[in-house]
């Protein structure tokens, strides 16, 4: 359990760092953007909005330390301030409305990409020297392709040219949101292209990473021993080689999560998907600083939680960490 406690401590520290970074960024950037924004808005926005924004930043005449404590206090109550774009909606409710879409889309796509990519990597290592090696150059190319470019290409081919799938929004205009089969179908239908984008763009890393570790593992003595014992090749491949090769793979997967989330932000924007990435862009375009910062905080915390889940998976797969 020491492993878990140490990781948990690190995530708490990182969460604190993200929160503090969020507090410091507007204060460190040149030209005090909040003051500028407040000055610019004075004429056409009601004073309540300005007051709300000052509160969201913990901006007051108090000293920096006091501001920091106020900010932490607000945060502890889930208070992220009010959005300027959607005034007077709270930032927290804007996020609550868009977060489920992102978690659903990115979560499912990441799991699919991990499963397919890792299995392909295992197979490619096992069947080295066969036609499967042909996947390697393709994976090498896909590994550096920008997510949003994949999205554009898919929109062009399957959305505009073939017209097989819708290219924007999360569900059709003609269905009402609710727990109906029709709504669920529409949501799935609209999620196909953005989902495929994330799967395709993030899969190459998994394939290449798993293949390389697996190839190295296949040379280990215990694999040779397992073969010598006459075990079936399926058992040797999955239970002996892949089981051990997957450990470093999980670590690199956890570290790549931040990158996947960044790519998903861009993907959402291409598809006007109503998730947190599209909201982030709206926030930046409208200089809606409270919304921007709230979203950065939520994304960071989500990535930390995902990392923690990856650690749990590691713990289950590697008995040595349980000591």
């Amino acid at each position, binding site marked *: 359990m020491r492993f878990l406690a140490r990781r948990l401590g*690190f995530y708490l*520290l*990182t969460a604190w*760092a*993200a929160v503090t*970074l969020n507090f410091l*960024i*507007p204060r460190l*950037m*040149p*030209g005090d*953007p909040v003051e*500028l924004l407040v000055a610019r808005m004075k004429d056409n926005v009601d004073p309540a909005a300005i007051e709300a924004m000052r509160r969201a930043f913990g901006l007051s005449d108090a000293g920096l330390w006091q501001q920091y404590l106020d900010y932490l206090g607000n945060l502890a109550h889930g208070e992220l301030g009010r959005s300027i774009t959607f005034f007077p909606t709270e930032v927290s409710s804007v996020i609550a409305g868009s977060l489920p879409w992102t978690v659903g889309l990115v979560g499912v796509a990441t799991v699919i990409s991990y499963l397919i990519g890792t299995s392909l990597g295992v197979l490619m290592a096992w069947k*080295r*020297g066969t036609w499967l*090696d042909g996947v*390697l150059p393709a994976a*090498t*190319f*896909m*590994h*550096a*392709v*920008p997510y*949003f*470019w994949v999205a*554009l*290409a898919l929109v*062009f081919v399957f*959305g*505009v*040219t073939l017209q097989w799938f819708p290219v924007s929004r999360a569900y059709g205009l003609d269905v009402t949101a609710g727990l109906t089969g029709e709504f669920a179908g529409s949501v799935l239908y609209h999620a196909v292209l953005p989902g495929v984008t994330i799967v395709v763009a993030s899969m190459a890393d998994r394939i290449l990473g798993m293949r*390389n570790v697996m*190839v*190295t593992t*296949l040379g280990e003595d215990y694999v040779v021993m397992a*073969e010598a014992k006459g075990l079936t090749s399926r058992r040797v491949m999955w239970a002996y080689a892949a089981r051990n090769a997957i450990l470093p793979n999980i670590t690199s997967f956890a*570290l790549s*999560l*931040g*990158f996947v*989330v*960044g*790519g998903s*932000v*861009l993907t959402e*924007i*291409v598809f006007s998907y109503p998730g947190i990435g599209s909201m982030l*862009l709206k926030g*930046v*375009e409208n200089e809606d*600083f409270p919304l*921007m*910062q709230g*979203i*950065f905080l939520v*994304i*960071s915390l989500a*990535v*930390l939680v995902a990392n923690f889940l990856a650690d749990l998976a590691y713990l289950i797969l590697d008995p040595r960490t349980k000591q």
Partner: protein
Amino acid sequence: MKIKAGVAILAFFTLMAIAGPLLIGADPAATSNDGLQGPSSAHWLGTTQTGQDILVQIVYGARVSMGVGVLSAVIATLLAVAVGLVGGYFGGAIDETFSVLTNIFLVLPSLPLIIVLAGYLPQRGVASVAVVIAVTGWAWGARVLRAQTLSVRRRDFVEAARASGERPLRIIFFEILPVLLPVIATSFLATVVGAILAEAGLSFLGLADLSTVSWGSMLYFAQNGQALLIGAWWWFIPPGLCIALIGTGLALVNFGIDEIANPRLRTIKVRKARA
């Protein structure tokens, strides 16, 4: 073989960025009346909505995209060298602090952070965008360099330098640093690609300097000019392809090096030994 192919790709794009604009000489922003033309002998890669030549834009865009990539990778690598080598050499509390800092920046999602930072920038010039990308992109290199420093610092020549009374900073930067140059070089190249991707993403969102032509800003204008709906594939395919090719070139170099270190990774025809 892989390394040669990778170096060739990287050299091609570097040459294009440096010499291309001089050879072409045209203005990438110049508009003409031939709007939205497909590839032809007059415009090899076609034209944009306002009749700008895509090939000219690609060549000039290479300069900005790769320039931002290299500039920000230089800054990030300097940071990574400082944090990784100093932490790895001294160990103890300094190392603990630097490691935690590195791991924090490694875990935090960099693109959202870059977007937020760019959102605060009063003006988004090439240099400030490069700095913002560098600030979020140094951690991976620092982690790799720290691990390497740990293995080097106990070697005989370092012990000898210490015994002869050299100052720690001199040992770090004049004894250890030269040994780590190959590692620094590969991590630098990887950072360049990461920075090019980040710049492209930022420009695509319209959050970088849109008055200069870069591959990302080309994609931004293609998206906003409804290139997809009009069917102008020649407008958005080339910039993304260039970015992906540079990434491929770098990956080939890295994989080639891996294969030299670990011959098992090679894709030679192996006789099927397993039944």
